[in-house]
């Protein structure tokens, strides 16, 4: 099996020859691999392609995240974004203050200004041997972005109907970007729902506000490609619900116990995770990485529905040796 086949086999519920290794190595870390500053790459698709492809070739993992850069994501909905220094793009102006602003959320053209070129470019660069993962925000996350997170959360009590309308208004954006990702060459879609985490909102609010839009988006996009649902930090109390969205895999973060997660969701969905991006990848040593990988394999490898990954994006300050250790240990302990 090549890398792509191995990764797609797990998502399809078929047996891979070994555990695929697909870390969340994106625009934060990749530019560093060839000595580029991140801020150039956030807004320059060619730079992203070059650095993401270089990172995959350097470390040899099975799937590359062909993101468009964090900046263009809120940007596609019309939010003003600024990038300064070696930093993450900031949404400096939110779009929606009141109900009549919902009309400002137009269905974006994901192809405009070459936004999909990084995906197409990476698919071209890495060929058919390596899986390409496209990255889209959920309707819930787009809603939080265009409204501003604090106001969005306050709306849950202040004006829940408005919050629902806003999330619904963002669904077409998720669908448009998701479909374009597949058209541009993504083998799978990672749908980010970072703010739906129970580190931020209650399981009840997850079920009321985040889940219905997740399920609807996944049901539509899943016809085109397998969808991996990502929720940051703690998702333990909502894992069964996340599995019920129809996602092919759940990308879970480091606060979740992998063995308990498997118990909670059964064998019907793959798990992708969950080496701690900060305490292990950024602050740990290669030996720490190996120990964490071994533990993750012991907890989740059985059943062949596991993809070794970091829980979240590898920070720019993580040592390259730790990324190499992640892949090497993945190969060592991931054999079936």
């Amino acid at each position, binding site marked *: 099996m090549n890398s792509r086949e191995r990764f797609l086999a797990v998502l399809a519920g078929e047996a891979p020859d070994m555990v695929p290794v697909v870390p969340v190595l994106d625009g934060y870390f990749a530019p560093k691999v060839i000595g580029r500053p991140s801020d150039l790459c956030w807004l320059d698709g060619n730079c992203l392609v070059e650095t993401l492809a270089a990172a995959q070739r350097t470390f040899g993992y099975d799937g590359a995240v062909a993101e468009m850069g964090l900046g263009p994501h809120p940007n596609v909905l019309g939010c003003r974004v600024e990038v300064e220094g070696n930093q993450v793009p900031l949404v400096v102006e939110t779009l929606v203050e009141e109900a009549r602003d919902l009309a400002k959320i137009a269905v974006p053209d994901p192809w405009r200004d070459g936004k999909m070129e990084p995906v197409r470019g990476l698919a071209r660069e890495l060929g058919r041997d390596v899986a390409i993962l496209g990255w889209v925000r959920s309707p819930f996350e787009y809603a939080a972005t265009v409204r501003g997170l604090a106001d969005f959360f306050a709306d849950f009590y*202040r004006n829940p109907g408005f919050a629902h309308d806003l999330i619904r208004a963002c669904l077409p954006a998720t669908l448009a970007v998701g479909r374009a990702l597949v058209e541009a060459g993504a083998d799978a879609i990672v749908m980010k729902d970072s703010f739906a985490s129970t580190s931020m909102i209650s399981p009840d609010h997850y079920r009321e506000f985040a889940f219905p839009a997740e399920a609807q988006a996944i049901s539509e996009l899943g016809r085109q490609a397998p969808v991996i649902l990502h929720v940051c930090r703690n998702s333990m109390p909502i894992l069964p619900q996340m599995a019920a969205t129809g996602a092919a895999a759940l990308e879970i973060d480091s606060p979740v116990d992998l063995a308990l997660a498997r118990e909670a969701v059964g064998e019907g969905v793959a798990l992708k995770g969950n080496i701690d991006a900060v305490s292990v990848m950024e602050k740990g040593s290669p030996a720490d990485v190996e120990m964490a990988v071994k533990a993750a394999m012991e907890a989740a490898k059985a059943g062949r529905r596991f993809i070794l990954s970091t829980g979240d994006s590898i920070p720019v300050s993580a040592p390259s040796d730790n990324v190499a250790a992640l892949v090497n240990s993945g190969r060592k302990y991931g054999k079936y």
Partner: protein
Amino acid sequence: MELLDRFRQALVDGDADEAGRLGGEIAAGTAYSADRILAVLSAAMGEVGARYETGEYFIPEMLRSAAAVEAALQVLDPYLFRQRQEKAGVVVMGTVRGDVHNIGKNIIVSALRAAGYKVYDLGVNVPAAKFAARIEEVGADLLLLSAFTTSTKQALIDVVSTLEEAGLRGRVKIVSGGAAHSPELAREVGVDAFAGDVKSTLAVCRELMGGS
């Protein structure tokens, strides 16, 4: 239930309408001292923070209570001010340049107001020079810097050096806090203290203001 108990409950429940209405009732009477009212406000925010720690409350519930505190203070502020000529301290607060997270900041602002501080909230993505200008303008005792992302270290250093250059560093105590920060980082960037949550922020501010 006694009026102050109902008031406290409305704050904990995050019922802004009820908190505002009861705040009005309290202000209309003369039965309660400013210190007693502020103690209730502060205890309510403390309970909200405790419920967050134990997983009973999440961020929307914290924001709901912070909004209730703001609604109550809108009504109570003139009443409290008549009784207390001095505030607990004057605070300038904002999220540093390069970071637009405002949830933690908003909650801390409400908790400090509830504890009797005069708080100037400068918002998010605040340049160092803006902090310096406002500190000078309002004669702040404390500067609270919120920094959520790991990439904000340089922004914190910039604020400290800007205050030094403006000759303001000796006049104001600086507290930093936020998800990505630690006491070690606070020492490294040269601020006076680190605070990680509502409770520790109130304790640190009290201590820096010379209280127990």
